[in-house]
């Protein structure tokens, strides 16, 4: 029987809390523009001081994602990205001494096809620390939660702006590692500003649960990272990073150049948290 005390993500948040620090969680579309670049990006992010990272498994029908991540997924699939390929990248990262906490952001469609237990076991043994399943709400999460607990994987649940206060607490109690606080009702992607309610919502949630809270959706610059982290334990940035990779690719950048470009942007994002 495993427990979560050995989990990299859990340990990271405990350490951050002790030091009164906050963290940035960059999101990468795994396999975009190709798996080799994803491997380089993991090393690059670690070198820039990132402690936790989300890897999105490309899916043909991501209903929660905006055009940037959708297009990156479509391109990754076209390039032949598969679950096996992504897991190999993570294995390589770990065997090279990679120490970031890694969360797999995967559609339940993919997990169900592979079989829940088999998929979770493979993710754990490859070196993932957490699962974020955006299309598995609380009511259906029994299919994953106990198995993840058993394996020592955090099953991270999401809270949305549309979620009622009572339900937020219920979800928060079942979430492991952290609570993914979705800042806007809508799909992933850049927004001009962060809704006021987000700050208030995170503060309110904090009163009821000890689990760390990280905010995602629509965060794209260092100022917003700083604002969010006044109340939250972490800020998740996805589309804005993937967009920079796309722009670099359009300019004809090599894998190394793309990794450096994303790394420089992540460095900007992380600076206010130092």
């Amino acid at each position: 029987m495993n427990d979560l005390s050995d989990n990299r993500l859990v340990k990271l948040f405990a350490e951050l809390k002790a030091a009164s620090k906050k963290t940035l969680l960059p999101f990468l579309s795994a396999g975009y523009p190709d798996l080799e670049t994803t491997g380089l990006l993991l090393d690059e992010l670690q070198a820039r001081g990132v402690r936790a990272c989300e890897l999105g498994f490309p899916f043909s029908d991501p209903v929660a994602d905006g055009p940037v991540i959708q297009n990156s997924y479509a391109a990754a699939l076209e390039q032949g990205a598969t679950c096996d390929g992504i897991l190999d990248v993570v294995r390589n990262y770990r065997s090279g001494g990679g120490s970031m906490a890694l969360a797999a952001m995967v559609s339940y469609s993919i997990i169900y096809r592979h079989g829940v237990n088999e998929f979770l076991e493979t993710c754990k043994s490859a070196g993932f620390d957490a699962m974020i399943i955006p299309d598995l709400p609380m009511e259906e999460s029994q299919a994953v939660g106990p198995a993840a607990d058993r394996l020592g994987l955090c099953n991270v649940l999401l809270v949305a702006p549309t979620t009622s206060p009572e339900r937020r607490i219920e979800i928060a109690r079942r979430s492991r590692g952290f609570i993914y606080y979705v800042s806007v009702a809508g799909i992933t992607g850049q927004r001009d500003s962060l809704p006021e309610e987000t700050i208030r919502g995170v503060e309110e949630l904090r009163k009821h649960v000890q689990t760390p809270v990280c905010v995602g959706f629509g965060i794209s610059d260092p100022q917003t990272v700083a604002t969010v982290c006044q109340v939250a334990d972490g800020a998740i940035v996805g589309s804005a990073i993937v967009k920079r990779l796309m722009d670099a690719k359009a300019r004809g950048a090599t894998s190394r150049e793309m990794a450096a470009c994303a790394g420089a942007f992540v460095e900007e994002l992380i600076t206010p948290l130092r």
Partner: protein
Amino acid sequence: MTLMSDKSAGNGYFGPYGGQFVPETLMPALAQLDREYRSAMADPAFHAQFADALRKIAGRPSELYFASRFTEMLGGAKIYLKREDMNHTGAHKINNTIGQALLAQRMGKKRVIAETGAGQHGVATATAAAVYGLECDVYMGSEDIRRQALNVFRMKLMGARVIPVNSGQRTLKDALNEAFRDWMGSVEHTHYILGTVAGPYPFPEMVREFQSCIGAEARSQMLQAEGRLPDVVVACVGGGSNAAGIFARMINDKSVRMIGVEAGGRSLKPGDHAASLSAGRPGILHGTLSYVLQDDDGQTSLVHSVSAGLDYPGVGPEHAMWKDSGRVEYLPCGDEDALDAVVALSRAEGIIPALESAHAVAQAMKMAPKMPKDSILLINLSGRGDKDCNEIASILERRKGSEKK
């Protein structure tokens, strides 16, 4: 007309199938919809309002028509057609959009969105939106916009916006994705009128109930016409709403054999068809666990059908349950057979069926000649073929060309 609220499906499941595999953002809206649907089901005033709207707007009841010349031509079972093609807007889709538009009103939502493949559901949604004064946006794959230009024009004429979808194969599945994405950001004031018995609960049950007027009418019309129920009922299945609508009220009549006909496309090789129940396996798509066409990694497969309305890699979860229990048989029908059926029914009865419905007609053409003359075969003629005429004309033209070579 009586709508039934299915207690066994109250947890959102049909046997092992169904569920709500959607982002948290949508869960409160689904809960609100479920509450409103249940309260409407328990409200006699809603039933009266819905029945009245079906009569005055859709033109119900639709006829049960004995196709005497078609029967003679096939030389076997007596063939009856449930004439959903005679409904206002030309298909069964209007039954569901009226029901859901009434629910949107009850919820105080002023805007509706919809996905559409063949355009029939889009037209039916635009119609209900016009009737009830709701703002309406319809998502449609750009490939389907090309195939179904007439329906695009009709939607726009009724004041709906038609938003082209350029992702994926640019067909029905991609239109559903976009509608869900819209709903993610608009859920507070927008109701998503999903067009079929798929998607997250409560859609599969709710859409079936709004479509069950088809089966309820057909059952009593058949008893009146023949003094007995049909031996076989045949309906086409894409997502499966017309089939669920006609099957649901005869599912407990054990003597009635039921057949759902899927899009067999060019062949049953992957990518050549849209026969989820015949060739797929259980998986999750658009918020529901049912039979899907997916690869081993969980990615949705490419699909093909001559009919834009059947061109979908999933199917409603209740059909999955009916398939597993053996209560309903599901068979594929190829593009060519469906086209032959369009021609045959047009010539025999002066009825041009929609390409979707032609799949059911084609299955009847295979079976009827082998059935005794006193047996009865009922086809759910779910829609009319006017929208398909350009597409059919160009395919028949190509066919003629290849025959000459």
